[in-house]
């Protein structure tokens, strides 16, 4: 996080760092590293805490609009104070713990979940100079931190001593194990092409533009697009969002692992869900959408963190949109989708990426061949596997009684 070798940067780009350095400047030199770290943590908490608050509002508003109703609009101007009202409500509600529950685990689950879901933010580069921790194996760290969240969900489900919660815990385990694999496999091509596990280096590898307008984001290559889609589907599942919200399927399991939670613990679960969602979307932006890179050279004057934010919000809105539209999968369909569709596709995509990497030197007419082959490698398996997956499921033609 050192602005050592700064390219001709504009003032806005460096503003957050200068602010931080100005604040830490008041402290003795020996404490500065600590203060810097703390400020980074507080900044991330504040930004994503607010994002969480307003994301819940945005979700309710957008869901409302999609469902032809205005959404919350009573608390504050256009309902802008709604998240705070919700927070106060959650804090003042009675915290009910079932007598049969395992009190320690019941208490620990939301805390652990929130703590773990925050870990991922450490390695996401929010801007050109804004990354909390530079790690050599940053991507691996990110997924290691994410892998632990499922344990917290299991703890919540099991400790509640509720049959619905227990079923939800089983579902959560199966779902998260199944989708870990496509999630990991989807980003392997990126690591392969960028040649690094460091998030900053991956973003740097996507810099530059063709003719000043076409960014070199990975999503704009055939394998990158396929990887992005697989990653986003797996991310939906990992963050327990509709259509993969089986652990908390309200029409089947009441609230799944959250059934026996109330008050602020319940709010913590929601916070963790949104943090996890933000972290995964942030990682998707970093891996596939060029991180903080501007879409074209002319727009570089806008600070990099604004671009990152815009891309992140777009993905989050996509999550909300999908939630408003799609029905939920069943457990066996969920696992089948992961193991029989996403994992093979991700593996084939690995091959596509290898091909892409090997043919990097092709020019002219060969460039077209390269694109055609790569596209075929992406589309062909998708169509074939998709047909296999949806076999026996098709719209039907109906007959009418003869009389």
């Amino acid at each position, binding site marked *: 996080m050192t602005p050592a070798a700064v390219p001709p940067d504009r003032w806005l780009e460096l503003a957050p760092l200068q602010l931080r350095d100005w604040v830490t400047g008041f402290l003795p030199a020996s404490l500065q590293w600590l203060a810097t770290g703390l400020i980074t943590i507080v900044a991330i908490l504040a930004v994503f805490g607010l994002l969480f608050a307003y994301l819940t509002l945005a979700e309710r508003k957008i869901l409302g*609009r999609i469902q032809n109703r205005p959404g919350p609009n009573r608390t504050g101007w256009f309902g802008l104070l709604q998240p705070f009202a919700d927070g106060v409500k959650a804090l003042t509600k009675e915290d009910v713990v079932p007598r049969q529950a395992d009190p320690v685990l019941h208490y620990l689950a939301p805390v652990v979940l929130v703590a773990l879901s925050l870990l991922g933010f450490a390695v996401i580069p929010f801007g050109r100079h804004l990354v909390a921790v530079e790690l050599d194996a940053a991507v691996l760290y990110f997924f290691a931190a994410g892998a632990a969240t499922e344990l917290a969900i299991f703890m919540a489900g099991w400790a509640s001593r509720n049959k619905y919660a227990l079923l939800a815990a089983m579902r959560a385990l199966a779902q998260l194990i199944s989708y870990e694999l496509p999630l990991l496999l989807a980003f392997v091509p990126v690591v392969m092409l960028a040649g690094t596990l460091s998030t900053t280096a991956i973003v740097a590898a996507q810099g530059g533009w063709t003719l000043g307008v076409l960014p070199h984001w990975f999503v704009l290559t055939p394998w990158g697009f396929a990887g992005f889609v697989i990653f986003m589907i797996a991310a939906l599942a990992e963050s327990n969002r509709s259509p993969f919200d089986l652990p908390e399927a309200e029409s089947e399991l009441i609230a799944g692992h959250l059934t026996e939670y109330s008050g602020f613990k319940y709010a913590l679960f929601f916070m963790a869900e949104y943090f996890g969602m933000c972290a995964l979307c942030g990682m998707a932006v970093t891996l596939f959408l060029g991180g903080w890179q501007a879409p074209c050279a002319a727009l570089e004057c806008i600070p990099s963190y604004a671009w990152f934010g815009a891309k992140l919000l777009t993905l989050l809105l996509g999550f909300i949109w999908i939630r408003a*539209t799609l029905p939920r999968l069943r457990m066996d369909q969920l696992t089948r989708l992961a193991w029989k569709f996403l994992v093979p596709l991700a593996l084939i995509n690995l091959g596509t990426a290898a091909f892409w990497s090997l043919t990097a030197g092709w020019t002219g007419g060969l460039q077209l061949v390269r694109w055609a082959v790569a596209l075929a490698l992406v589309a062909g398996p998708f169509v074939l596997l998709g047909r296999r997956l949806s076999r026996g499921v098709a719209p039907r033609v109906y007959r009418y009684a003869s009389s």
Partner: protein
Amino acid sequence: MLGTGLLQGLAVTAKNLVGSFHDPARLPTLEYPEVQPQLPEAYRNFPFLVSESAEDPMGTLRCVACQICEKECPPQCIYIEKSKDKKPDAAGKQQIFPAVFVIDTSVCMSCQICVEVCPFESIKMDQVFAIATTERFGSLLLTREQLAKPNSYYHQIHPTEAAEVDRRLAADRQAAEDKAKAAAAAKSAAPTPPAKPATGGPAA
């Protein structure tokens, strides 16, 4: 191909999202306390008793305590006690009147059968729906005094129906008067029997 159905669905929701901002048909919400609903004329809530005059509601009740509504009321939420004495009604005729007329609105199911069976057009359906109370018993048990509302109010909430009822009542009264005159002409001295409607039809 896999996914086309999903994309189609997403297109529909996107259309609704955008539509909710410019198409009133896609945002039909009524923001209630600020925007009051437009009640249709036929809307019914709980019954009230029609009195002829606003100044003296108890003296001009149309109800003659015949107790038909009490008998027909499906949940039996009406309780009537007949008066021991008679009192002149709005037309000046001597009538029995309800000494006690109580409707338990916590039981009433707004079916308006009392309105249909009433031969005297004296009980009608009200339209006031914001009737929440802080207490379950006394304030939901409406007495004669609370139930009585003038005919002008009836005209205000059900104009067409009320006009028709007035016409019919006038016709009945006319017929009764004619009959009385004819009877008076035939037999020189006889007390007027209480008016009975010719049709007996419900308030339509």
